[in-house]
């Protein structure tokens, strides 16, 4: 009898948490209620566990300052809006689909391949031409971008494209078509713009190269078994590059 009880008590140790969770079925609940009513060992074990937890639960919770929290929410919303402009291609953070944790590099749709090239360019151009007011807000948040007056191609700290505010005078409103804000003119530094455009083009041509090879493999012009590994690697490299670019731009956009 004692032995039987011990086995039941050991079992209760495992079931205790589901009992406390309220996820036992009716039959199980009735069984354990009955056991508890006649077993001082399990009753005491249960009450000590509950007491330990309740002591932990009396401790005050930590918190974030309201102002910081508001900034965090603002950042989250801004960042998401930026990426949502990229029309779902980046939704998974990865161009290529996964299956059982392994890449299926050629399962990507052709439509996504062409869109990705366009999206990469849009993303880069957005960074170059985004409004100064946005940057100013971000400056307050992170101190990530430095406002500079000199005209070197890259900021000294992080090689990020710079945008200079040249004037607030009404005569120079000719740039409003670009940024939509009256009285503010922005100039993308030419060297930077060329660099990022080059990056986008490189990415885009890589994607087209994969796309073209996929067509040839599909059409039987390239032997599948011989070429699939090569293009899998190429596709994975592009995938990595897009992820890296996405991260880089997301860091600099906030």
């Amino acid at each position, binding site marked *: 009898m004692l032995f039987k009880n011990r086995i039941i008590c050991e079992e209760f140790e*495992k079931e205790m948490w589901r009992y406390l969770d309220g996820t036992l079925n009716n039959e199980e609940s009735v069984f354990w209620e009955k056991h508890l009513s006649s077993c001082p060992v399990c009753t005491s074990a249960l009450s000590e566990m509950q007491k330990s*937890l309740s002591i932990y639960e009396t401790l005050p919770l930590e918190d974030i300052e309201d102002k910081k929290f508001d900034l965090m929410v603002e950042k*989250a919303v801004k*960042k998401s809006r930026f990426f949502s402009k990229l029309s779902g291609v980046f939704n998974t953070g990865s161009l290529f689909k996964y299956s059982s944790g392994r890449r299926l590099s050629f399962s990507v749709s052709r439509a996504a391949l062409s869109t990705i090239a366009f999206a990469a360019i849009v993303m880069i151009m957005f960074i170059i031409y985004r409004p100064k007011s946005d940057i100013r807000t971000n400056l307050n948040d992170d101190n990530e971008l430095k406002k500079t007056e000199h005209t070197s191609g890259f900021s000294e700290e992080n090689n990020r494209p710079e945008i200079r505010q040249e004037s607030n005078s009404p005569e120079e409103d000719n740039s409003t078509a670009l940024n939509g804000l009256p009285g503010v003119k922005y100039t993308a530094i030419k060297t930077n713009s060329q660099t990022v455009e080059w990056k986008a083009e490189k990415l885009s041509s890589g994607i087209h190269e994969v796309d073209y090879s996929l067509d040839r493999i599909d059409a039987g012009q390239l032997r599948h078994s011989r070429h699939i590994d090569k293009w899998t690697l190429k596709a994975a490299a592009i995938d990595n590059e897009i992820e890296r670019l996405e991260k880089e731009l997301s860091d600099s956009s906030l």
Partner: protein
Amino acid sequence: MENNLLLEKQLIERCRNGESAAFSQLVKIYRRQLFTYLWKLCGDKSEAEDLFQETLIKAWKGIGRYRHEDKFSSWLFSIAHNAAMDSHRKNKVRMNVFVTDELRAADYNNPHTQLVANELRGILDEAINSLPEKQKQVFLLREHGDMTFKEIAETTNEPLNTVLGHMHYAVSKLKKALRIKNVI
């Protein structure tokens, strides 16, 4: 309770329509629990703030995919948990609870209460600190995420029985620590 759920549901709908104010209000409900969870899990306030930010970004981005039949708090804590695990993997930093002076400075008005609370907090944080990673995760998700063990099992990708085992060992260790200090 039902009113809270209704409010939550309304806020989620407003979030889906792009209202950032609703998102702020929604997250505020769980802000303290979530931040405490992250802080205790990674053991560093600034790291916890980064993870909190990451959680907000992912939650806002993914709110359209949230299913009403799931508990919002569990969904939010799963995102936080995954963000913490990703960061853990990337940075290879051991998540560690340590009790800083700042953490110890509980906002109690009564000096005696504060003293007792701080001592208690020290004991419990030390006990949590000594837990193996999985036990710590399960314990914190249960305590701060208000998740059922089934939900924790899904979030941590562990079998339910393993999760129950982790919880049991974690609380047993807390109990032992409290007993040594004659708290219970």
